[in-house]
């Protein structure tokens, strides 16, 4: 029998995902099969404890902050809700590496700007962000928008009639909220929690900046250290990868168990207008609180960064300050790697975003429209990276492709592309599958019967109808790829260095002003991309 185009497409995608996701995951398992290394790593109780502490507390704080802000902005008549909600996306667009560095300038015990200021004015230092507290503080600020978005979405998709009926049957505002709304938000909160936990378990940038100097080492910084000693201790690094993987996979499975057996079906693809609660004067305090969060997560760090890129050196003495663009000139014209890193990052950003948009379209279609083993497998594989910290993914990619001569990508930008593609795949596939489900299947059937083949149908019907989502996915992945640290730091070579690595190098070398200038340029590119998306949106090209 002639093989159908659908089968060819699904099989090709499966093959690709086996190389992109399954092989790296397997490589981690295989190379960690070294009992000595595993024993040594497990014996390092402090680092394991630190990692769990960072992951656990960051998750709890991020979900609390995100959940409360979702409540404040979606369910309460808080002044300026619309603007604040739009601004809640900002922390996602700034790499935690930059926020951490900015906060280290603001809040390190000696030399931190805030502490210097306080010392001069009151004779005491105020804060110490070096160590566990600082890491968890900055990470919670950085990751809070993830739970915010998921919980806000869950609140919007909840039928207000569910609350109304509780009210009619005798529950007060707060009773209805506590007994009905809160339990219904649980899946979103758990889901967001798991997402944050997986990402923070493998977090490199923030602990590398704020933790290591204070003696607070975590798994990702350990992996980085093990691979950058001579000779590199691969087995131990892989053992760390395996342990992280075991913890995150167990967490995902536990979450599935926790939510199994209960129906939380409040979502029918429908969006409701949630009923707004009046809280009187308190509303001003809530708005102020939200602004305060945004100030800490974005305003203060970005202002510090911009100021640092323009001032001659970091000082609190106005008499010594001089402003010019020499740091920009330095990173653009003098610094040996910055130009190359920027070019590589932009290229990787464009390639990753394009690849993810295409894969999201194809995989999303197969997963939503086809039945059988291969589509099922594709779905699992495409979602699996959600359970794999990016540092582990990078280890696996390294283990798979280093020395694999038939795919000679080791040491090139292509190996970064592989890691990025695997890491960002779930974002793309999730969004595109959701958009695909909104398309009535008969729109596709009708194109087939009218004479279009599979690819003609995709081109003429599915692509135009999902274009808004695909454009949004492209921009989001471009922005996120531009700021990726945890995987890049393990995979780059001097020729394939990227922006985040260049910034980390500048930080390690103590060139704070150059770093600030480079960071500001990266933010400028990011916000240019987002502004472009906004323009597309107004023209109706993107949703």
């Amino acid at each position, binding site marked *: 029998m002639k093989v159908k185009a659908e089968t060819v497409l699904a099989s090709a995608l499966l093959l690709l995902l086996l190389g992109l996701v399954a092989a790296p995951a397997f490589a981690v398992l295989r190379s960690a099969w070294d009992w000595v290394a595993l024993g040594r790593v497990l014996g390092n109780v402090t680092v394991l404890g630190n990692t769990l502490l960072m992951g656990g507390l960051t998750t709890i704080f991020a979900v609390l902050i995100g959940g409360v802000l979702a409540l404040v902005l979606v369910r309460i008549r808080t002044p300026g809700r619309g603007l604040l909600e739009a601004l809640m996306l900002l922390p996602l667009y700034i790499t935690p590496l930059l926020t951490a560095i900015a906060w280290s300038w603001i809040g390190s015990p000696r030399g931190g700007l805030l502490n210097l200021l306080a010392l001069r004015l009151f004779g005491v230092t105020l804060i110490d962000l070096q160590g566990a507290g600082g890491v968890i503080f900055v990470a919670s600020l950085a990751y809070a928008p993830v739970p915010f978005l998921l919980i806000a979405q869950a609140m919007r998709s909840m039928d207000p009639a569910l609350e109304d009926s509780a009210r009619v049957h005798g529950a007060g505002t707060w009773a209805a909220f506590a007994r009905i709304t809160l339990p219904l938000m649980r899946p979103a909160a758990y889901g967001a929690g798991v997402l944050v936990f997986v990402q923070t378990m493998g977090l490199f940038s923030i602990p590398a900046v704020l933790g290591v100097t204070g003696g607070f080492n975590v798994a990702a910084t350990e992996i980085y250290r093990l691979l950058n000693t001579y000779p590199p201790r691969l087995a131990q690094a892989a053992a760390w990868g395996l342990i992280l993987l075991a913890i995150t996979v167990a967490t995902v499975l536990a979450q599935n168990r926790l939510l199994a057996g209960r129906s939380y079906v409040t979502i029918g693809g429908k969006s409701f207008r949630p009923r707004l609660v009046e809280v009187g004067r308190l509303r001003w305090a809530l708005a102020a609180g939200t602004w305060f969060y945004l100030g800490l997560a974005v305003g203060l760090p970005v202002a510090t960064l911009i100021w640092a890129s323009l001032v001659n050196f970091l000082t609190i003495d106005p008499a010594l300050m001089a402003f010019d663009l020499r740091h920009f000139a330095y990173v653009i014209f003098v610094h040996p790697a910055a130009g190359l890193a920027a070019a590589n990052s932009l290229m990787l950003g464009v390639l990753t975003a394009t690849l993810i948009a295409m894969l999201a379209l194809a995989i999303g279609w197969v997963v939503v429209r086809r039945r059988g083993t291969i589509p099922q497998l594709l779905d699992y594989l495409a979602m699996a990276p959600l359970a794999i910290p990016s540092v582990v993914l990078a280890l696996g990619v390294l283990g798979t492709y280093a020395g694999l001569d038939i795919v000679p990508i080791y040491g090139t930008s292509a190996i970064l592309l592989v890691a990025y593609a695997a890491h960002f795949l779930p974002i793309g596939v999730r969004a595109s599958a959701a958009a695909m489900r909104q398309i009535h299947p008969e729109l596709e*059937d009708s194109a087939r019967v*009218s*004479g279009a083949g599979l690819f003609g149908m995709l081109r003429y019907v599915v692509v135009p109808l999902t274009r808004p989502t695909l454009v949004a996915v492209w921009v989001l992945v471009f922005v996120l790829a531009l700021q990726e640290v945890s995987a890049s730091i393990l995979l780059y070579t001097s020729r394939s260095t990227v922006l985040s690595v260049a910034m980390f190098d500048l930080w390690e070398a103590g060139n704070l002003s150059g770093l600030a200038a480079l960071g500001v340029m990266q933010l400028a590119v990011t916000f240019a991309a987002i502004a472009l998306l906004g323009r597309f949106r107004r023209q109706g090209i993107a949703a």
Partner: protein
Amino acid sequence: MSDAVVVENLVVAYGGAKAVDGISFSVAPGEHLTLLGPSGCGKTTSLRAVAGLERPASGHISVNGQAVFDEAGGIDVPPERRGLAMVFQSYAIWPHMNVAENVGFPFRARGIAADIARPAVAVALAMVGLTNFADRPATLLSGGQQQRVALARALAFGTKLVLFDEPLSNLDAQLRLQMREELADLRRRLGFAAIYVTHDQDEAFALSDRILLMRAGRIEQAGTPHELYTAPRTKFAAAFLGVRNILDARIDNGRAWLDDGTMLDVADSGPPGRAAIAFRPASVILGEGMPAIVERVLFAGDVVSVLLRSGANEITATARLDSGIAVGAKIAWRVALADCHVLRT
């Protein structure tokens, strides 16, 4: 000339359940065949299997003399190369294209130049009365207009076979009647063969040359509208086709005896034994025959609907508005010989 469609032993299975369980039928060129039945009877699945949108488990399908599916021969032609057109229940009008682009899509999809397609699109739009709507975005049309766009798209390319999946079920009653007539006219003019899926018996009776009544994946009864209307063969067929009176009876000597001793003359009685008899309310003649009690009288427009009780049996009859039948009265009734059918199974 070969048949427009030949289907042999078609089986479509979902998991273990057979949605279509070994049906066979053929459609002659220019013929209108309707697949009629309640939801879940497999009629839409059969249609989609002919279109190539559903993969059968086994069987054979050919379209215009060419095999498009044959399990044994390893043939499964994709929908785009089966040379047919289809009107979908949801209309399936592409929201990102205007009316002319929707109708012209069968040309574009097959790589035919726009200047060749344009006159055909214009003709198709004229046929459905949408000439002035060509540049209108498809999403700004009413349901009835979208239905016409779907029809124009199916006819524009001039395929000899058009499939219809409950095309009128989303329209309001008045529009449905109007579209039914237009559809009949168009088919007479253009001469395409049609397979038409519906659960509406009136629609089936009005449009079809032949009807396949389906039940649970099988063909319950096949025939012309007239045959099905006048002589349903099974209880299911009779009930689905609106025969109100279906009564258990004992057949003996060319006559049917109800449990309470009422005797009725029947056409084509067949062998003696237990069976069901069926007759329409309009076939009941009041004022002569066996006695019964009037239980209920309902005003039904042109006539009154009268419910009679005879022992445990309820019989629905119709009477003239001025017949003056009163609840509780005793009345005699019988059924015209030719209209009283014995049902097997």
